[in-house]
């Protein structure tokens, strides 16, 4: 895609999301402006069960905010509710 505003990001999936996507990672072209828009776009495409309100998000190995902008070549992880310990 070469539309204005299009960027390519690398998504890594863990735990429930990896199961629901059936993949550990993928490159995605998107025009989503924010991380929340990107999650909702992918969620509707693959029927992820968890709404954005139950998730956190990380970009380039740091926690980020859902309203942060999506940048070309970002490595993005959607973080389902954690359960360590």
């Amino acid at each position, binding site marked *: 895609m070469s539309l204005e505003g299009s960027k390519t990001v690398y998504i*890594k999936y*863990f*735990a*429930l999301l990896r*199961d629901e996507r059936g993949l550990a990672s993928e490159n995605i072209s998107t025009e989503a402006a924010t991380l929340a828009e990107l999650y909702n776009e992918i969620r509707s495409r693959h029927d992820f*069960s*968890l*709404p954005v309100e*139950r998730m*956190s998000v*990380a970009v380039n*190995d*740091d*926690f980020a905010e859902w309203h942060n902008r999506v940048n070309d070549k970002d490595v993005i*992880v959607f*973080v*389902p*509710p*954690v*359960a*360590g*310990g």
Partner: protein
Amino acid sequence: MFSLMETDIAESPLRAAVEDERAGAICTFDGRVRNHNDGKAVSKLSYEAYAELAEKEGNVVIAEALEKFNIIRAAAAHRTGDLKIGDVAVFVAVSAAHREDAFKACRYIIDEIKLRLPIWKKETYIDGGSVWVNCQSCSSHAHKHVADKGRHSHEVARASESTRS
């Protein structure tokens, strides 16, 4: 220092890492896989981590503990992969001149690890089936109960933790 471990957590190196001649107290905590959760008999657990961020955040938690409490050293480790009943899932060691700060810091570290680190637990039950803990839809009992109080999913983690703590 915080680390993720793919094999059994060896407790003695973690304990040794916090030993110090100034320390009059060493407090340790180990969280273990118990045989039941939420009324169901558990046969095994598997932990998965987003390793880069979990290790980074784990070290942030330890740095915070060193700042907040009057302690000397702190170390912690968390397992990934498949665990059996009784296996150590998480281990925390803290040294301090006096016991009060050692206890408080140890408690702080385990609580924050559970709340903040991107680590997920999949439980397999004796009567079949498996589930990613805390990832059930909003209609599940555990989440509904907590959501009714207007709380966040972190409290769900506490309500359904499946290590002895």
